[in-house]
């Protein structure tokens, strides 16, 4: 007997929760609908109708788009410079509505933006936009990565242990981006407010580039890599230091690379192989 009211209460609570869940889902779907609905969905149960509903829905949709615009402009400055504000904002609006964010921190809202750019038919004449966006995103995301922790003992391991038994773990957030477009050159051109028109026209005819992205103190950096450096980094990510040394180009200067890596914070740690995973999130 005593259990029955509790069961009834639980059932009522579940129904009330389900009713609110449906109401919230309905409002969210109205906000992200491709076109705003002229009348509020019945499941929403709002008082406002007609023009007042339209004004309220427009205010919420505009607020969402404004958030998207600001966040994406900050995350993709090169793409913004390439497209100009009007075209960029138009794509940002499409992206916001088609791929609503999954998290409540707008700093991470642009993860799928490069693919969205590539899917826009109107932008097909600028096929490098997706990779340029990937470079922007890598430069943005590396700022969220922990700085490298390389310590004296890591360097001692390099001197004392057989390279075949060592793994070089690159700093978190470092990225190796390969593109069939000269994305670093394009990025460089757009670091100035008004890039030279001739240089912009000629840029797509240049060969593709592999770009290395890292952070140093509070700033993100990138540089285009010669093929030998790219091959070395790819091997370093994939296997042991020993295998990377074996596969390195004949003229590749490992000592010089190590000096740079230490100076720029590219290496997080050097660890013996036993029982450890490669911790880098560098990607090829």
């Amino acid at each position, binding site marked *: 007997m005593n259990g029955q009211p509790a069961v009834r209460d639980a059932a009522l609570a579940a129904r009330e929760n389900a009713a609110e*869940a449906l109401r919230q889902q309905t409002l969210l779907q109205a906000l992200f609908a491709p076109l705003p609905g002229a009348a509020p969905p019945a499941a929403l149960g709002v008082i406002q109708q007609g023009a007042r509903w339209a004004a309220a829905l427009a205010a919420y949709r505009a607020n969402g788009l404004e958030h998207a615009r600001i966040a994406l402009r900050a995350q993709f400055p090169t793409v913004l410079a390439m497209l100009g504000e009007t075209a960029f904002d138009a794509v940002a609006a499409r992206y916001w509505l088609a791929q609503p964010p999954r998290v409540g921190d707008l700093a991470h809202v642009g993860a799928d933006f490069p693919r969205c750019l590539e899917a826009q038919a109107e932008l097909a004449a600028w096929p490098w936009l997706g990779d340029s966006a990937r470079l922007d995103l890598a430069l943005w995301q590396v700022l969220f990565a922990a700085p490298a922790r390389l310590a004296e003992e890591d360097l001692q391991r390099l001197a004392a242990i057989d390279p075949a038994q060592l793994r070089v773990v690159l700093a978190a957030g470092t990225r190796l981006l390969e593109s069939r477009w000269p994305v670093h050159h394009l990025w460089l051109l757009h670091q100035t407010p008004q890039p030279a028109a001739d240089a912009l026209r000629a840029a797509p005819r240049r060969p593709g580039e592999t770009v290395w992205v890292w952070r140093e103190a509070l700033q993100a950096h990138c540089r285009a890599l010669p093929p030998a450096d790219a091959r070395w980094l790819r091997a370093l990510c994939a296997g042991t230091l020993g295998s990377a040394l074996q596969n390195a180009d004949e003229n590749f200067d490992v000592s010089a690379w190590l000096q740079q890596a230490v100076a720029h914070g590219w290496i997080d740690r050097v660890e013996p192989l036993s029982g450890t995973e490669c911790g880098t999130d560098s990607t090829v």
Partner: protein
Amino acid sequence: MNIQSAARAGIGLRQPHYRAFREDWPAIGFVEVHSENFFNPYDAAAQVLARVRAEYAVSLHGVGLALGSACGLDDDHLAQLAALVARTEPVRVSDHACFARAAGSDGAIVHANDLLPVAFTRGTLAIFCANVQRVQDCLRRPILVENLSSYLDFAERDFSEPGFFAELTRRSGCGLLLDVNNLMVNALNAGADDALAAVCAWLDELARGMPAGGIGEVHLAGHSRQQGLVIDDHSCVVSAPVWQAYAHALRLFGPLPTLLEWDTELPELGVLLGEAAKAQRLLDAEAAARAGAARQAEAVA
């Protein structure tokens, strides 16, 4: 140098003001920042916050927890907030009485990144109580929940808005972050003949139902009119009726830490500090009036 904020006025610190703020170190009661802007412990903003925190009481005000979401909270978001709270040791932690998370058309959870309104029903109260409790358990401290400006109202309701917040604070142990401008925006959008009177009536009802000490902070901001609606855009100075409503709130609840918010069309820092000084004068006047009344009562006794 300014580590105390009880019943003092503070400002919301935004990125364009960082430099001016750090040149002047103005004499204000506290600084409030948006929590999500400081989730990243490795960027320049984190360093700015650490420096500011060394000089001021800091209040963390979130926009992304979505405490009213029926689908629950985002574990990762809460973990990032907990880490920020541990780093910052803020004087207060707050977020909004809104939802933002729900299943999208594909069934996956979508986060609207906006402060979406909730119906004041028993179901919503239960959702808030569960989510607030979870946050408080995680942070090991009570939080404040801010009343919203809302452009939609729901026909179904089991509580008035002040009644809802009184019940929420009673059941969950959280406090209310009383946004007076939001009350004014809602009253204006509801077409109230006398919006100030409507806001004061709202505050009176809150005073009748709210547990003692249930309000932890007050927000003041400007609003604007856009396309048939009053929008809570924090884009201008506090309006005269909002100042009057604020004075009414102080008379009802006593001096409370008060934040001047300004988020769009940011003016020079001095303008924002001028608004904070105005709030401080009202806080001081209310404190003086209460001290005078207490002295008079003592003399009579």
